[in-house]
């Protein structure tokens, strides 16, 4: 997705007198994703599901299993359907649209859309179901694609929403009436619910004619970078294709990039272990006044649509027979489910789509500014605005070479705009760009009790919060930087041959599979490209003393960027290894606490305090084989001695030797602003 994509602000035209009302009362005759002889409305869908052969057969079997009468179970199914099912109320849509636009203008945001991609997609609608699979970084994601569809006269998507919204007064119902359907987070222990949901989703995809939208990652990524996908929803939505109820399914990866994520502070706290507050309408109303601020731009980028049919045909490696004919196709259509083989394919697709979401990332000025400021913190040297702009300019060049798309016209103006958007995070102190520290805080015993991890000192938290927030804006760009950064880190630990380098690189990538999601099968290609990049850009070069080996190159500036970009992840990994080597066996929660504790006492990069990062590293180590995962009542891990030793020596050898003081004594942390705030 490199190169220059044109983005259009779809809110701007509404910013006129009566702009909102005029637009929200426009004639509503949207494009459907399916051309059908008979369309099923929201109520029809429920009826189709309730009367389906699948539900009937399931009830029959379930009734025998549980001894509950079929009638009672059927009643339960109808209740479930009422809980799940979406609705369609045009007037609610119009009112919601007005509220949405009002709030957008209050937040002073621009919604920039890759219009060419939308129009291209729209021109192909009508043939088969479409799935929108956006990244999930904020609750705002829920409204954005729906509004986008309204803007471009496409049927509002059926959006899978969590039960958190269901229980919200008015909001829950309004979301339902604009196409949201509700899914429970876990299907375990309730086979009847699972069956109802499965069949409902399947029916919506096959018969409703609206795009279906859900978040592959399953939850808002608190780290602002990709999470490994969940496979449940995708497998449900693709059943109609495997059962050939539809000829194909189009999957549209969508990346939504934010200049400022509303939840940034909450997320930073969650990383430290402070649980998220419960979603309530009251809470929403209370937070409304905080929205009267500048929130910058949001970029919605649609990736190239994937035809599931083509994708599967391509990966079918002459096993056509096996994938088309299965015991499943001998069942009644309604009862057909995915075979093990098809489930593998679905997982493959999900993983692939996440990488496509990554490739559609739009690097925002916030990201660039965050990188520059983070580096400034690390070298403990504040930069002037001019230097910052120069640095960003250089960074854009670096990232574009690495394949990123950066949408920017006027750099200086943009940086100034972002300084306003993020005035609570960064500030110009005199001429210098500085980080705004958090207010001193008292951690109440109440909060302490709820904390999921180690009970951190108030001071640690105060120091960590702003840095973690800043890191959240560095994170979306990291997937471009990590491959060359790891290559450089390995080379830094001593001259190495290409083969040795590749071996170490692969090991590290495996350990970081969960921290930096990537596909295993494309790793060799990624490595080759990153190596080439490092060579071309003087990060490393062929050694003259030791022919046949690689050694560090002359580009200090780029090397610095690469070195620190991988620092938090490698440090967390090293901490996890240390902790596990010490305690040999530990349950999951305890392990994370110990990692946090050690990161706190070791004065590591504050992002190393993140429970999420620690969990990712533990999973990576398990994948690597250094830990054994046991699941009885709760998850616990056991060390595999020789493997963990192997990890230990590799990580310590490549760990960048950077010691930074992230406390308030760092010169890049503003001292003025505290006083002014006080």
């Amino acid at each position: 997705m490199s190169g220059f994509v044109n983005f259009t602000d779809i809110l701007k035209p509404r910013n006129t007198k009566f702009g909102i009302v005029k637009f929200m009362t426009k004639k509503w005759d949207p494009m459907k994703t399916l051309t059908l002889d008979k369309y099923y409305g929201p109520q029809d869908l429920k009826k189709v599901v309730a009367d389906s052969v699948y539900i009937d057969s399931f009830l029959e079997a379930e009734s025998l299993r549980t001894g509950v009468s079929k009638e009672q179970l059927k009643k339960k199914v109808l209740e479930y359907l009422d809980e799940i099912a979406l609705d369609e109320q045009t007037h609610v849509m119009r009112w919601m649209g007005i509220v949405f636009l009002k709030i957008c203008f209050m937040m002073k945001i621009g919604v920039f859309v890759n219009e060419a991609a939308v129009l291209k997609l729209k021109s192909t609608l009508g043939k088969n179901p479409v799935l929108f699979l956006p990244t999930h970084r904020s609750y705002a994601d829920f409204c954005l694609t729906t509004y986008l569809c309204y803007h471009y006269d496409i049927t509002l998507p059926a959006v899978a929403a969590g039960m958190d919204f269901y229980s919200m007064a008015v909001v829950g119902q309004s979301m339902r009436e604009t196409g949201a359907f509700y899914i429970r987070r876990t299907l375990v222990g309730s086979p009847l619910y699972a069956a109802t949901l499965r069949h409902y989703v399947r029916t919506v995809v096959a018969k409703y004619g609206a795009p279906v939208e859900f978040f592959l990652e399953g939850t808002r990524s608190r780290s602002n970078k990709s999470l490994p996908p969940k496979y449940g929803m995708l497998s449900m939505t693709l059943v109609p294709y495997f059962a050939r109820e539809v000829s194909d399914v189009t999957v549209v990866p969508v990346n939504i990039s934010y200049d400022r994520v509303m939840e940034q502070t909450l997320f930073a706290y969650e990383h430290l272990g402070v649980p998220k507050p419960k979603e309530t309408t009251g809470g929403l109303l209370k937070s409304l006044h905080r929205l009267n601020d500048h929130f910058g731009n949001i970029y919605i980028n649609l990736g190239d649509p994937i035809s599931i049919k083509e994708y599967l045909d391509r990966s079918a490696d002459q096993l056509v027979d096996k994938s088309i004919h299965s015991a499943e196709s001998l069942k009644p259509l309604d009862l057909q489910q995915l075979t093990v083989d098809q489930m593998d394919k679905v997982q493959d697709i999900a993983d692939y789509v996440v990488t496509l979401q990554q490739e559609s990332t739009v690097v925002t000025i916030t990201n660039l500014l965050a990188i520059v400021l983070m580096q400034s913190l690390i070298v403990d040297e504040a930069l002037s605005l001019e230097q910052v702009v120069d640095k960003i300019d250089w960074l854009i060049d670096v990232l574009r070479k690495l394949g990123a798309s950066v949408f920017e016209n006027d750099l200086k103006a943009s940086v100034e705009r972002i300084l306003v958007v993020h005035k609570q995070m960064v500030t110009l102190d005199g001429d210098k760009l500085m980080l705004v520290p958090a207010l001193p805080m008292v951690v109440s015993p109440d909060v302490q009790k709820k904390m999921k991890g180690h009970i951190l000192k108030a001071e640690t938290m105060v120091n960590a919060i702003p840095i973690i927030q800043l890191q959240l804006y560095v994170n979306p760009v990291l997937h471009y930087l990590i491959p060359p950064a790891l290559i450089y880190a390995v080379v830094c630990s001593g001259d190495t041959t290409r083969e040795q380098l590749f071996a170490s690189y692969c090991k590290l990538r495996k350990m970081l599979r969960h921290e930096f999601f990537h596909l295993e099968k494309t790793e060799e290609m990624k490595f080759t490209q990153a190596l080439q990049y490092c060579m071309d850009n003087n990060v490393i070069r062929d050694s003259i003393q030791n022919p046949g080996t690689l050694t560090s190159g002359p580009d200090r500036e780029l090397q610095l960027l690469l070195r620190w970009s991988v620092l938090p992840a490698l440090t967390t990994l090293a901490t996890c290894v240390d902790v596990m080597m010490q305690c040999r066996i530990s349950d999951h929660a305890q392990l994370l606490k110990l990692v946090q504790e050690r990161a706190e006492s070791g004065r590591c990069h504050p992002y190393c305090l993140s429970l999420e990062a620690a969990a990712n590293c533990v999973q990576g180590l398990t994948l690597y084989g250094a830990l054994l995962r046991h699941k009885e009542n709760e998850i616990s891990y056991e060390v595999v001695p020789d493997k963990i030793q192997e990890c230990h020596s590799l990580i310590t050898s490549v760990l960048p030797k950077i010691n930074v003081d992230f406390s308030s004594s760092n010169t890049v942390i503003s001292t003025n602003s505290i006083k002014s705030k006080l």
Partner: protein
Amino acid sequence: MSPGLVTSAKNMLQNTADDKNNKRKTVNSEKTSSFSDKNKNRSADSKKKYETIIKVKSVIPRRRQDLLKWYGWGYKDSMFVLDENTTSFTGSRYLIGGKNLPYAKQWIKEHFDVDISKPHKVPQIPTTFPKSRLPDNIKQELEKITLLSTDGMDRLIRAHGQTLHDVYHLRENSFPRIPDAVVWPENHEQVEEIVNSASRHHFVIIPFGGGTSVSGSVTCPANEDRPIVVLDTSDMNSILWLDKEQLLARVQAGIVGQDLEREMRARGFTVGHEPDSYEFSTLGGWVATRASGMKKNTYGNIEDLVVQTKVVTPRGVIEKSCRVPRLSCGPEWEHIILGSEGCLGVVTEVTLKIRPLPPVVRYGSLVFPDWDSGFHFEREVARQRLQPSSIRLMDNEQFRFGHALKMEQSWGGVLLDGLKRFYITKIKGFDPLKLCVVTLLMEGSAEQVADSEKKMNAIAAQYGGVPGGAKNGEIGYTLTFVIAYVRDLALECDIVAESFETSVSWERALALCRNTKARVRSECAARRIAHYLISCRLTQTYDAGCCIYFYFGFKTVGFSDPVRVYEEIEEAARDEIIACGGSISHHHGVGKLRKKWYTSTVSEPGRLLLLAAKQALDPDNVFALGNMAFDQYTPDVVKSKL
């Protein structure tokens, strides 16, 4: 959409890897189930594949001998009892159960001159059995797959079917060979594993369903040196799915007929396949013998009912990849399985047609002055394709036998019977020693049934028939299931009795019945058999012909080997049938009893095709039952070793 921070980045890759491990674990986990808990789920394997699975609680327990007679036909508690004063049928399972049968004794006396005062010969339960030849390593391997038993009784009662020959050996405990072990797989996958094991270890598998075969097909081959394992399908009795819209059901092949029918009826449907053995025989058995049911006119024979079969052969699983109503794709290989009599593989799953239950079921009967007029009536009904669900013609002997099993009645019933009798014999002038009865079973809407009855009566009138009442019809059909019990009583009274059937074209049918009866009579005369019964009925009608069912029994006093004598006479009768243009079997199958006529029936190339099928599907002869011409198959040892 967030399940908390700590678990939020749950590793899905890891989870799926775990799942796969778990799957393997369940397959390998030790089975620790006992024999008494047949109806409990032994494992959840098939549940994963079929979440709509209906686990059926079978009437028949895993220890069949607990409910069923080990030495004869049917339920332990149901049998004819003769004593000084009365004849009765015990138990409460059948319409005549627990009732006195006042007319029976006289009939028995008349036909067989039996001395009722003699004590009954109920055999002693056997205590010694041939030692199991199954090597320990195979036993252990099989036990890992599924439940296994080497108990003598378990093996003995699965060594045979229900031919006269089988029952005689059984009562004497004189089988030359019985199986070495019994296994009870629960699903298709386990059957695959068992068959794989058989191929590797060179043991023989005998698929066993209800054990009701009357062709000797399931009888343990006497000259088999390899270990023999009976694969009892009765634990494979789940309904995997039921599609009420498509009117189809996918059922495991071990389900017993009455269980299948009960489950379907409870849901408002019926399969409608009711062979006389359907209380005990299984779906897989029906497929393997090309079974035919009483109500085939409405629901079709087994080949019409089956939409799809899944069969495990030593060469792999044979199943069509699509479930379609008809296919033009070369020969239909499913027809290789239909009628394969257990010699090519094990039927594990079947997709069947089902029908909504008819709102009205009505019996009827028609009385004709003689066999020929009854026969012509049947022919006419078939010509017009007006057959109700079932239409049968009984000859005079059978009519009188039916009468002999009539229950004690109230005086009103007696009076009514008397009036009817008076009307038929005196007013219509029917000869009681010649008249024949047609029984009818009509199903459908009230309108359809009434219409059918009207048409039957009208056609009957053309051939001199008069309505004989619904009750007589119903009794006729109840007797169907009870008749099988007669043989056990007969054996106790030194009478051997057996039935055999054939199919024949319309124009040859009358001569066939006449000639066959005559042949039996002359064979009896040649052997100086004074007390015997030969009777027939016409049980099925088709466009091109009909099915004739013969009953033959004789008193064996004075014969050292009555079974042999019986078999000689039946063989002579079959020769006569074939000479008259009849077939070797309409629905009982060939088995071992009718091998002699197999090749001449199907022609020499036909026989070669049969052996080629064996070579293709079971080259090492794992399924070594030796039915039809399969005993002429010798595994090409050199080839199979390569």
